[in-house]
């Protein structure tokens, strides 16, 4: 069912950003940074690739009562069960999900990881900062670019 952009905005005005990261500290710090910057969005967390895919396809513990689709995915690479690369591949191969921008968010600096994830369809690659100031910068940039500048609101709803 195709709905107009106007109605979408009325129904769903706030951006939803989901962070997939198995590290509870990183999730906490990201929440802290979003809060500190007062970024106008809903930040959601999943703990690994399996969780992320369940959330996106509304399966498992994210059953029927959840019908939201995130506007941006922040995706860690090294995660148990299903890692960032696998999750990214599945998202970009799924016609229902591949329109959602994915920003890789990893400690890895290796050129291979960067190249592979871009090849798989990642929209950005951000190396996790080592200081909170750095994290504040990154979250501010995410806000500026993905929320304030570009238009990412889904035009298709199911």
């Amino acid at each position, binding site marked *: 069912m195709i709905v107009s952009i106007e109605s979408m905005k009325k129904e769903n005005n706030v951006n939803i950003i989901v962070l997939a990261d198995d590290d509870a500290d990183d999730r906490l710090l990201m929440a802290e940074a979003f809060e500190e910057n007062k970024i106008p969005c809903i930040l959601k967390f999943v703990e690994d690739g399996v969780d992320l895919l369940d959330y996106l396809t509304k399966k498992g513990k994210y059953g029927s009562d959840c019908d939201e689709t995130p506007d941006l995915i922040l995706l860690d690479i090294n995660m148990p069960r299903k890692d960032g690369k696998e999750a990214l591949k599945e998202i970009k191969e799924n016609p229902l999900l591949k329109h959602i921008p994915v920003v890789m968010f990893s400690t890895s600096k290796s050129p291979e990881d960067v190249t592979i994830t871009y090849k798989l369809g990642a929209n950005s690659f951000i190396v996790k900062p080592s200081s*909170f*100031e750095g*994290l504040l910068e990154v979250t501010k940039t995410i806000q500026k670019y993905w929320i304030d500048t570009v238009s990412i609101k889904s035009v298709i709803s199911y």
Partner: protein
Amino acid sequence: MEKDILFAEASVKKTLNFAYIVFIATYLIFLVLAFLAYRGQLQLVSSTNSANQYNYFALRMEDHMSMLKGLDAGTKGFLLTKDSTFLIPHRRAESQIDSLLTIINDYREGDVIEFEEMKKVRAISYQLLSLQKKLLNAPEEKRNMLLKYGRIKMDTMTSIIAHLKENKLTKLNYYRHFQNEAIQEAPTFLLTIIVVALLIFAVAAFVIIKFIRSLVKIQLNLSHKIEEVEKANKELDLYAFTLTHHLQEPLRKVRLFVSRFVTKNKIFFTEGGHQEEKVFLDKALESAELAQKYLDEFLDFSRLLHHDKIEKTAVNLNTIINKVLKEHHAVINEKDADISVDNMPIIWGGETQMYALWSHLFDNALKFSHPEHPLKIKIENVKNENKMIHLRISDTGIGFDMAHSEKIFDIFQRLHKSHLNKGMGIGLAVCKRVVEAYKGSITVHSEPDRGTVFDVYFPATAMVI
């Protein structure tokens, strides 16, 4: 392992000496065998020859005697019948005596006594021939005398021929005796020699095989040990890599949470004026940052070590050095360094490795500048006759005492304490590893206060253009 090698060396010498002796002995035995075989063959040939000679002589003499007897019979027949057909032997006699000459010729260079006797035989033969001719025309009263004379001559000749035959038979028997002796003795002798040779060979083979076995064992032992060492090295590499990797996360968290603590309590630190307390936290942050930097550098070094994973391409060193210069742009300006770069070659290698090499070398030249002298850095492509790639980077920096030149390429070595914070002393170790990974070499020449020269050599095979 060293004991093994020493043992191997000693036993190689011993066994080689043994092998030489065996080979020389065997060679001599074969020489003796060859000589014996040759002598046996010679005896066989001369014995056969003398047998043939005897047979030929006997036949010839028989023919000769029968010819003379025929001559005698012909004369007697003619005298009785006056029939000229009895004279046919006379006509042929002269040429038949001449054919005897050919046998005499055989003796010219041989036995002197035999030759003389054969000459006597010929002379008597001619005398007998003329006697027979005289008999044909002689008056009757003279015939008896002539016949008697002929009888005597004939007997003389028969006895000479008999003597000659006897002589030849003695010779033949003499050779036969030798031949028999040789035939009887040779097999035992040859057999003995062959058995001895075979025994020596068997012993030699046993010793050599035993020796080769022990060498193989040592070889296997060594390769096992090398394998173990390589495995242990790889494991250590992996441990170091994993440990460094794992340490990075907690360090990052320390920095994140401490800085979060500071930002969350900004008011407490700035407006509350608790600057002293903040200094402690800043120090903690700095230390964590330094530790992280060390880990980062070590990880880079570790990655460079695994060069089997590195993809090799044609790397233009001009591009690499330009990139390095761009990277150090700020410091170059700050130090007002005078930099000159030759036209560099294109090398077959890993781009990251080449970048690391030149970045560290350049960094080194830039970092250790002299406080009083202007800094000049020269990167040269040195032409040489060996077709090797010879590249040089020289600076006018503080230099160092060549007594430390061995240590300079070791990992975690720092010659200048004042530069403690500028790295963990991994740069030149990286350079050495990279160059050695390409089967090249790197050398350094330095003098305190005069500057440092690094010479980098790559084999000609690394050259693309």
